[in-house]
């Protein structure tokens, strides 16, 4: 008996839901020639002689498969989840409260620690929001650098998602591949801003630092080599019978449900809704970049996987365009209400000295107003909502956390599935508890 043909070919596409709207599992079998075929789906529901008392089981908050300090209380009928009650808040630090006691630039380090897989993306999002509140414009070089920052951080975040989800479902190799590439991105970030995880890379009105000499060459090298890793992971998983069997028809959300539950990002797009903030409410001149938005059709875990892998490729495309168009020039705004004038001028020029004094002693003060700026974070629509009363500290700094809203739909998604599938569904949401608990 030949045992060499381990890689199996299956038709793409997921089984979806049955006429009652319930997810259909597709058990698969390997035929003699090594290909995978699907069997008839089994009748749903529990055999009456097996229906007994329900069992309460607690997962987390200290469980590796909950991706952080998430606790799920599950009521099981046999192995089927009847009810799921999530508990969060174990990582609550009161970021929004602290933000009301800090000047705008002082809040930026907090944004690192909120969605910590996307820290530089949060920095950029915060700065865009604060700049709109201040009415400040940034120079073109800064805009392009920020696009690079956001897409690099999307790549990091999706790679962590890919790696950890593979671990959850029993595949170890893609984890190593994706974390290797993530390391390359972190090296890039480190040589740019000096930090890997807690970048604090932006300021209101500019960046903390310009990129160093030769940095774009390293980035070009990354853009050239990275798609190979994506292709490898793709080849490893997309047509892998085990992977498909463990992800297909799980946690299905229809398009209407996904919108009504407020899902965003890959979760929403996997359900077939073509909504991407970069396309629909563009910021950072995203409307001038040529990229596609992947959209799924079934809204299950497998489609979310496909959407995220395709987003990795699209992010690389955007990076390549951004690095080609990167203009020369300053990275900081010349508006001295928010950016300090050069020290030499502060010592010789009266007006510059006043700006310097006001900024250092009082902090930049936005006009009275409010602004909600959404960006497309790797998890979905992340919005910062600022309310200013004209003082140097915001009256309200609200984070609209995408994975918080996405996670709130978990009870709906896991009910009716097996306990082991809860792990896959939870992984597919791509939660970061730092952002959820804030």
């Amino acid at each position: 008996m030949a045992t060499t043909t381990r890689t199996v070919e299956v038709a793409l596409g997921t089984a979806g839901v049955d006429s009652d709207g319930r997810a259909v599992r597709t058990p698969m079998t390997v035929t003699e020639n090594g290909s995978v075929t699907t069997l008839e789906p089994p009748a749903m529901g529990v055999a009456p002689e097996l229906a007994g008392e329900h069992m309460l089981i607690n997962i987390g908050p200290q469980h590796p498969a909950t991706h952080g300090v998430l606790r799920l209380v599950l009521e099981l009928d046999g192995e089927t989840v009847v009810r799921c009650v999530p508990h969060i808040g174990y990582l609550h630090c009161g970021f929004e409260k602290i933000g009301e006691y800090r000047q705008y630039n002082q809040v930026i380090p907090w944004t690192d620690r909120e969605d910590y897989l996307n820290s530089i993306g949060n920095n950029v999002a915060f700065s865009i929001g604060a700049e709109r509140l201040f009415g400040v414009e940034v120079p073109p070089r800064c805009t392009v650098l920020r696009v690079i920052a956001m897409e690099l951080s999307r790549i990091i975040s999706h790679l962590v998602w890919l790696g950890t989800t593979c671990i959850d479902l029993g595949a170890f190799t893609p984890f190593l591949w994706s974390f290797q590439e993530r390391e390359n991105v972190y090296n890039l970030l480190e040589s740019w801003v000096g930090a890997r995880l807690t970048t604090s890379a932006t300021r209101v009105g500019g960046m903390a630092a310009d990129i160093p000499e030769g940095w774009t060459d390293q980035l070009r090298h990354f853009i050239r080599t990275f798609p190979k890793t994506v292709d490898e992971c793709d080849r490893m998983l997309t047509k892998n019978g085990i992977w498909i069997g463990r992800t297909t028809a799980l946690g299905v959300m229809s398009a209407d449900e996904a919108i009504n539950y407020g899902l965003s990002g890959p979760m929403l797009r996997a359900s077939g809704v073509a909504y991407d903030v970069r396309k629909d409410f563009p910021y950072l001149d995203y409307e001038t970049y040529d990229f596609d938005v992947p959209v799924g059709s079934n809204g299950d875990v497998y489609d979310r996987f496909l959407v995220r892998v395709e987003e990795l490729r699209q992010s690389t495309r955007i990076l390549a365009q951004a690095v080609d168009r990167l203009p020369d020039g300053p990275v900081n705004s010349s508006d001295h209400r928010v950016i300090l004038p050069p020290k030499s001028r502060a010592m010789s020029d009266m007006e510059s000295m006043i700006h310097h004094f006001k900024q250092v002693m009082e902090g930049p003060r936005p006009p009275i107003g409010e602004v909600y700026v959404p960006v497309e974070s790797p998890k979905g629509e992340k919005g910062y909502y600022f309310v200013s009363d004209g003082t140097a500290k915001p009256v309200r700094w609200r984070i609209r956390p995408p994975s918080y809203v996405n996670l709130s739909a978990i009870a709906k998604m896991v009910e009716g599935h097996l306990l082991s599938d809860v792990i896959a569904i939870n992984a597919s949401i791509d939660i970061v508890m730092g952002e959820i608990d804030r």
Partner: protein
Amino acid sequence: MNVPFSPVLPGSANPGAPAPATPRNLPQRGGEPNPSAAAIAAKFGKSFLRTEVVWGETNVYIQASAVSEIIRWLHDDASQQYDYLSDVTAVEFRDPEQPLEVVWHLRSLPYRRFLRVKVSLDKRVKLEVDSVWPIYKAANWLERECFDMFGITFNGHPDLRRILMWESYREGFPLRKDFPLRGRFSRAEQLRQALSITTEGRYSMEELSVAQAFEDLPDDMRRRLAGGERTGE
């Protein structure tokens, strides 16, 4: 097997997308209001209070009693179609005289519109407003957080419990301006309360009701659990 996965959307930008909102083309006050504001004013004359445009975003102030009705209409009406609830939150100003505001950020995916609906609540009476949970399931946790942080009761919410703070939290509502940054209780009191907390207190009564299986546990296990003995520490 049904429709195969379609990997990409062609094109570079959705045709209906609005012009990018940058300070270049936005005044701080004034500007083109969202047409939905005028539509609300025409349809709900009495409940509509005022509208303003700040940095290109339209705020609509409405009566607290009409929240459910107006947002339901915004969601259902074919000319509005605000099908996506981005956020529910509240704002309390530093000036104690100013009322507390509840804010709904609504988005219409078909029309690519964004609308901010606001309600002012008098702080001297009980803070309460209708829940939009029957309209948007997304409001579930957002309203719970708002209740947890500001103490606003959302009438009609199915499960209004604290969410980020624990259920036995007694210090009040952290995002209110009268709540000190370091908490209301002293560090010693906070520590004492944290240590005296019962871990079972984290289960809601609803969850405990499904834990009827307790009676069926072996004797020694029941004794251990009932005595509050801590294991594995």
